[in-house]
Structures are given as structure tokens and as C-alpha cells.
């Protein structure tokens, strides 16, 4: 045990002290942001049939939502309360509620769903509603023009007045029947981000393990070391040491990112407070002798539109369960890495130089790359069949599960995925130890799959 700690220490310190580690720690968060932005906007389509129940209190949108290839609409006449309580039994994908408005044209809707609503459903609803409202506005405008002939026809004016922004908020109905506002976009960004991050970490640190093993072999120090420690201790020491480097990097990234976020938040919040305090003091001055008015100073109407946009992002960020996200990330990174790390170590042990690794790398990298390639399908449909199976299969689950988790998935799936991952990790480590132990003592021999199989049974 003492020796494995010595090995871990060496592996850790030699890597953390490298300049490249420092550079990655600083560049990482910036790089990641760039990688995340592109695929988020690429994902637009979902492909499973989804039924959306509609409660339209305004009556304006009746029969206006046309079924598409993968979205089916049906209208409910019941009230919102009972629809919500029946929602779980109905098998519907989402429940669209358009509340009645007293005077103005409706531009608000709420989507209730069990998990986050996919982007295309949301945008389809938004488009239909926008078009409908704009049509109505245009019709009214034209009627006005007909009755009031004095005003000259100004197309630009009309178009501007017709332009409508429809707001569709999504609210998640959780198992306990609780409701929470959910933000698909945030889940998408988070899912993509953590999926890519975990892929990147497994690849980067897994191949570091492999290179480390090859280095020891080509350096010929391996024989000196294994005359003092067991090959398994050396292998595990290396895998754990490199894994700790990865974890350190990740935690530094988290701290760095939160640092940046906090700085930005406090800057914006500071401005807002400043504004508010000015307004407040003005109000206080105005209503010095009327304390009742004070209660109204916090009304949202005093806030500026710009502030609202920023606040919405922070509000959205607040809905993310960061402890769960980070906890899941650490788990899936750790075990995904341990599983892949042992496979990478086995490859390193079996070959003589990095040039020889190609044939063995392929079967290991294919599942990893596949889970990244399939990422957009997971995002479009986080609770679909493809996403489910990819997030259960251990070789793809670290990436796939991290993409799905921000969208909210049943706990049993996470538990199953975790259990399978741990089991697979134990299996691959056992296998890798056998290949490694034989491989590190072989120099100058081209190894084939047949040979590896022999070592396994050896």
C-alpha cells in the first residue's frame, strides 16, 4: 500500500508540474465554451411521435396546431388543475396551457412536461402561436384602416405593430407533483458541455496512461520498477495518479468557471442594485410622508427590459442542480476513466511504441467516438430509446449519461447505469492487469489479438 502511494505521488506530481497542465487549466474553460456553442444550435429535430394536450382558454388557437410528422395535438376541455393531475396517466408528452387574457392579445403559454421539452416542440408551438397572433393583429389593423380612411397606409408601421413575441415557458411536473420552471436550452448546453468534457477527459487522461506505460517500456525502467513492485500496483498507481490529475484539472475548472460566473453576476447585480437603490431613494423622497407607497417599490415594472434578459439566464442557471451535476460528473468521469484507463494501460503494455497502438486503439475509441457522434440524438430526445441504451451500455454510458442527466431522468436508470459501469470497470481492470503483466516484459515483438487472448488465459 505504501508503494502504490509512492507511485501515485510520482505520477501525479510529474504531470501537475508540467507547463501543459497549467496551460490546459487556463485554456480549458474557454475552449469548452467554444466547443459547446456550435452543436447546441445544430440540434433542432426530434424523431419520436409526441402527443401534446392543449388547453386553450382563449379559444383563439383552437384547431390551429396542425399535427406534424412527430408532434400530435389534441385539445382538452377540462380545467388546468385536473389536466395536470391526470397528466401522468395520460401518456402525453406535454401539456400546453394558454391562459385567458382579459384585454390584451395572448402572448403567453405554459408547457407542462415530465422532463424538459425538446427544442423542436417548443419552437413549433411558438411559431404557430406567433403566426396566429400576428394574423389576428394584422386583420384588426386592416379593419381599422378600412373604417378610418383618413390615415395614410404605412406598411412599415403596420408590420412593426403586428410584430409579436410569444413567450412559451416550460414547467416540469416532477414525480412528487411539484412544479419547477425548466429551461431546455440550459439543459442542452449543460448536457452537451458535460458530455464533451467527459469524453475529452477520458480520452486525454486515458491516453496519458497509455503513453506513460509505453514510456516506461521504451525507457526500459520498467524492469527495475517491477523488481520492487507488483505489475498490478504499478498499473493501478499510474491509473489512479493520472486520474487524480484529471480530477484536479476538473475541480480547478469548476472553481475557475464559478469564479468567472460570480464576477459577472456580482457586476450585473451590482448595477441592478445600484439602479434600484437610486429608484428606491427617489421613491422614498417622493413618498416621504406616505409610507404605504414603499411596499410597491419592488414591483417588477420598474426593472428594465435588459436586466430581465440577464436575470433570466441566472434564474435558469439556478434551476440547475449543480451538486447533482458535479457529483454525477465526478462519478462518471472517475469510473469511465478507470474503465478506459485500464484498457489504455493494457494497450500500452502490449505495444512497443505509440505507432503500434493503432490496431488496438480502434475497438476502444469507437464506442467513445460513437457516443459523441450520437450526441445530437440524445439532446433532441433525452428520454428516447437511443439515448436510453447508450446511457446504459457501459462503454458509452459516461458520455451519454452526462448528456441526459441535465434533462432529468429517472433515478433507476442512473443507478442501473452506474452499477453496470462499476462492474465493467472491475472486469476491464482484471483483463488489463493480465495483458499488462505479460506485455511489459516483451520487447521488440509485434503483438496480435491472438497473442493477447493467450495472455488473458495465461
Amino acid at each position, binding site marked *: 500500500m505504501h*508503494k502504490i502511494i*509512492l*507511485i501515485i505521488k*510520482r505520477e501525479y506530481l*510529474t504531470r501537475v508540474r508540467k507547463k501543459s497542465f497549467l496551460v490546459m487549466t487556463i485554456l480549458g474553460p474557454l475552449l469548452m465554451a467554444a466547443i459547446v456553442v456550435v452543436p447546441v444550435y445544430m440540434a433542432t429535430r426530434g424523431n419520436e411521435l409526441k402527443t401534446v394536450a392543449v388547453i386553450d382558454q382563449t379559444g383563439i388557437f383552437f384547431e390551429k396546431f396542425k399535427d406534424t410528422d412527430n408532434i400530435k395535438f389534441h385539445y382538452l376541455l377540462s380545467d388546468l388543475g385536473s389536466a395536470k393531475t391526470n397528466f401522468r396517466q395520460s401518456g402525453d408528452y406535454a401539456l400546453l396551457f394558454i391562459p385567458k387574457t382579459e384585454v390584451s392579445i395572448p402572448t403567453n403559454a405554459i408547457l407542462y412536461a415530465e422532463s424538459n421539452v425538446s427544442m423542436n416542440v417548443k419552437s413549433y408551438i411558438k411559431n404557430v402561436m406567433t403566426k396566429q397572433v400576428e394574423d389576428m393583429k394584422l386583420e384588426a389593423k386592416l379593419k381599422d384602416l378600412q373604417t378610418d380612411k383618413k390615415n395614410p397606409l404605412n406598411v412599415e408601421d403596420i408590420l412593426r405593430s403586428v410584430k409579436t413575441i410569444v413567450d412559451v415557458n416550460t414547467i416540469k411536473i416532477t414525480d412528487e407533483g411539484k412544479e419547477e420552471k425548466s429551461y431546455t436550452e440550459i439543459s442542452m448546453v449543460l448536457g452537451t458541455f458535460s458530455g464533451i468534457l467527459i469524453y475529452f477527459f477520458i480520452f486525454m487522461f486515458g491516453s496519458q496512461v497509455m503513453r506513460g506505460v509505453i*514510456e*516506461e517500456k*521504451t*525507457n*526500459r*525502467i520498467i*524492469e*527495475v*520498477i*517491477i*523488481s*520492487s*513492485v507488483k*505489475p498490478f500496483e504499478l498499473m493501478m498507481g499510474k491509473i489512479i495518479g493520472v486520474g487524480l490529475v484529471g480530477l484536479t484539472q476538473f475541480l480547478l475548472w469548476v472553481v475557475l468557471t464559478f469564479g468567472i460566473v460570480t464576477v459577472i453576476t456580482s457586476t450585473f447585480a451590482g448595477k441592478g442594485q445600484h439602479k434600484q437603490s437610486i429608484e428606491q431613494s427617489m421613491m422614498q423622497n417622493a413618498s416621504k410622508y406616505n409610507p404605504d407607497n414603499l411596499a410597491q417599490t419592488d414591483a417588477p415594472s420598474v426593472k428594465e427590459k435588459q436586466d430581465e434578459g440577464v436575470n433570466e439566464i441566472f434564474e435558469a442557471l439556478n434551476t440547475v442542480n449543480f451538486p447533482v451535476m458535479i457529483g454525477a460528473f465526478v462519478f462518471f468521469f472517475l469510473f469511465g476513466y478507470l474503465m478506459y484507463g485500464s484498457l489504455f494501460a493494457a494497450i500500452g503494455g502490449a505495444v512497443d511504441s505509440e505507432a503500434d497502438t493503432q490496431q488496438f486503439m480502434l475497438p476502444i475509441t469507437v464506442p467513445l467516438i460513437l457516443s459523441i457522434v450520437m450526441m445530437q440524438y440524445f439532446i433532441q430526445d433525452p428520454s428516447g430509446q437511443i439515448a436510453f441504451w447508450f446511457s446504459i451500455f457501459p462503454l458509452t454510458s459516461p458520455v451519454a449519461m452526462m448528456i441526459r442527466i441535465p434533462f432529468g431522468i429517472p433515478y433507476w436508470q442512473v443507478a442501473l447505469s452506474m452499477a453496470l459501469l462499476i462492474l465493467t470497470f472491475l472486469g476491464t481492470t482484471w483483463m488489463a492487469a493480465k495483458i499488462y503483466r505479460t506485455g511489459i*516484459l516483451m*520487447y521488440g515483438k509485434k503483438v496480435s489479438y491472438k497473442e493477447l487472448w*493467450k495472455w488473458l488465459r*495465461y
Partner: protein
Amino acid sequence: MELFSALNVSKQFSGHKALDKVNISIPEGSIFGLLGPNGAGKTTFIRIINQIIAPDEGQLFYNGRELKPNDIYNIGYLPEERGLYKKMTVGEQAMYLAQLKGLSKQEAHKRLIHWFEKFEMKSWWNKKVEELSKGMQQKVQFLITIIHEPKLLIFDEPFSGFDPINASMLKDEIIAQKEKGATIIFSTHNMASVEELCDHISLINNARVVLDGPVRDIKKTFKTNTFEIAYNNYLGKLETILPSAFSIIKEWDDHDLRKASVQIPAEANPNQLISSLLPNVALHSFSELVPNMNDIFIRVVTEKKPEPILQ
């Protein structure tokens, strides 16, 4: 008293036997030559001693009892294929490897400083290994091998890569280790150094021990009772003055001397050779031709059937 012995040790690798019922015992305090052609099984045997691999069958004894995992702390091993981490500093690396051999941090540091001073290597401590010459790296490796003062030292081709000056320094250090009480296993193809250093040898060929014993005894066994003589002032034929049972193997001129090698029957006395020569020639030198290890090695290895094991 033996420090280490192997009893009927066999090891098989997929398809071929690397060691076949090998019996070797290494006397305490000796320098033991482990000889054999390439691929004979020497490295496998050394790895088995180091517990890097386990034998398929047979027993291993250390100091009279069965070999235990902890005995690796009593063994220092300098492999033939050796190297260091290129990017690590010399001092850090030496500390790491010394601690892996069971030394505490303080003890490792104390001993390393002592040796670095002795070998005039102090200025290397903070240098990266890749900045050192090959010879310097070999020195570091040697030092790491002996740093934990093991009772059993295993050197596999220790002189390869050393220049003559460093090689002789290394040789002196190996002898010094022996004098301190260490037992040394010495594996090499350099028969001159075997002759110079080894007390005992084992020769492995095709996975089996084919020759084993003290160097002096082995040489005695391979003696052919052949003597080399140098003489002059005689123009006749040498065979006319020698007893008929004696045979002349070779005759040649060496500057102004005539030389010959003569084999006498096993029961004959070398004095008979001298007394038959003295009346006729001016004898300048007389010496017994003892086979050197190189000859013995070649003879044993190239012989089709292995010699019976000599104990």
C-alpha cells in the same frame, strides 16, 4: 552455506520451455556467473529470482527458507535492458526508486547524498536524466541498485555501455560489495570478466543447466594435459626426442623462438616432458595450457549432447 537456491525450477511460455528443471545454488559471499547463449533462459531465471514472474514448478530458497515476497528488499537488480525516466531529475528519481526498495525518505536521502559524493555526482542531483551521458546514466542505475544494501545483487551485463575507466571503477565497486558481504549473481557474455570475477558459474543452454560448479574445478575438468613450450638451439624434429606417448598438437615459430604445444597422457608427469627436452634444447618457457572460460563455453554449447552435470 547457500544464500539462494533453486530446486527443479521449470517455466513454460506459450509453446516453448524457458527453464527445464533447473537446479542452481548460489554460495553466500560468492560472485556467481550465470552464463549461457542468448535465449537460453538466463533472463527468465533472473526474473524468477526477482519474483517478477513465478515458476510453473519447483522451489526457491533464500537463506535456507522458502523465498518470500518481502525478499525483494534483500535483492538489488540491475537489468540488462535498463533505463530511467528521461524527464525526471536525477535526485528525484533516485529518491523514488530508493523508496520503492523500502527505504524511508530520510534514509534514502542520507544514503544517496553519501553515494553521490563518493561517485562525484553531486552536481547531477537537479539535472534531468536526459541531460546526462549514457555512462553517467549507467552510474546512476548502478547506485540505485545497491542503495538499499541488498544481500543479493544481480547484475545482468553490467559492463555494457561503460568506457574502460568507468568499467574498471564498476568492477572495483562490485568487488567492494562482495567484500562487504554481498552475494553477487553476474550474468554476462564477456568471458574475460567471468574469469576475472567469478568464483562459481552455472551455464544454461536450451533451458537446462549444462555446467555448474566452482570455476577452478570446472577448469580442472576441462584440462587436457597440454603444455606449451618455447625453445631454441635445436634444429632436429621435436617428436624424435619426446616419448612416443606424447603428441605434438602444434608447432610454430615466434620470432627467434620455436614454440610447440604438447599433450601428455593423463597418467604422465609433466616432469617427464621437461626431462626429455632438457638434454636437447634450450628451454625458454614451460606452461600448462589451461582452457579459458571462452573455450569451455563454446565447447559445451556447441556440443550436440549436453555434458553430464558436474557437481
